[in-house]
């Protein structure tokens, strides 16, 4: 499943997508993120019949994701995002 967390507002689309078919809940993304955007759940909240751990975007971050990620996204040349770089299976993508 592709789980898109975030929102769209007048200034653009701000979504972090997690591919839950790739993510195995290893947790590598969690400590790398300076804004504590990710959390690993024991099972996928959107797929209750599957009992595998998976990463989600924390509830309290979803409404402010544009601001939470601003520190990793300077204008001009963008360094690799720590979360994306940390994920061994390329499960994380950002829409902006």
């Amino acid at each position, binding site marked *: 499943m592709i789980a*898109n967390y975030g929102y*769209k507002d007048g200034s653009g689309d701000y979504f972090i997508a997690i591919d839950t078919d790739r993510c195995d809940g290893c947790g590598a993304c969690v400590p790398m993120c300076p804004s504590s955007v990710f959390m690993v759940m024991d099972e996928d909240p*959107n797929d*209750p019949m599957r009992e595998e751990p998976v990463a989600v975007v924390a509830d309290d971050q979803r409404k402010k994701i544009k601001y939470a990620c601003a520190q990793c996204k300077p204008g001009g040349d963008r360094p690799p995002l720590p979360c994306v770089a940390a994920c061994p299976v390329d499960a994380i993508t950002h829409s902006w």
Partner: protein
Amino acid sequence: MAEEYWRWTESRWTNPDIDWKKGDIITGGVDVGSVSSQAVVFVDGELYCYGNTRTGSNSPDSAHKAMGLAMEDTGMSLTDLQYTVGTGYGRVNVPFGTRAITEIACHARGANFMYGPTVKTVLDMGGQDCKAIHCDPRGKVTNFLMNDKCAAGTGRGMEVFADLLQVPITQIGELSLQVEKEPPPVSSTCVVFAKSEASSLLREGWPKEKVIAAYCSAMAHRVVTLLERIGVEEDFAITGGIAKNVGVVGRIEKELGITALKPKIDTQIAGAVGAALFGDALVKKERKKG
């Protein structure tokens, strides 16, 4: 007392073809939303009864009220439910709930039951948020997007609007179609801005139906842009309270160039239906484990 234009009628239904006392697996689903709460009971995988109510001041009471309405005159009581799943915004506060499952999962599963396995895209227009979901033929979510921020395109926004224009909420959709020429959409669907924009259009002398049309059209456009992020694959179904508003649904269909499947039962109960079906599946799973 002033008339409450936003108020929609609460409803309930019992399936006359089912004798629940002969049932093997009986499960409940409760969807406590910010605006409305629904409860359903499934008997061996079939819909037995439902109740659809306005959410009260707290989630536990709303859950009881909805299930009480669903079970009215059925002779059933809470103890007859073997497994109950809570969903919606108040899902963890369903006092008789066995467990909670997200709305995303429940709406996909519920739409799959209500509209059939050909449904690939579900748009849920609920009280407080809007979700676009892709699912497989078994109702399992394959892609989803939830707009976590804004009440635009939601039931609550429509209620505020009905009150402002003093038009009963059930008539908004029809009325919005009574314009000769489609007016430009209001520029914002944000509840607060749309309200002041609509007020000023009324002051300028726009007839009500034209203001309503402009608002429905803005709401439709707003959710279409959201849907476009994940794409729309047919069959397409709309769940939630706004699915009953022909003014919004018609405009969404027009903008997408796609017709939504026509609902056979109350579109507001999709989440609760999915919840009860997960209950059914979880009972079976436990039995298998022994």
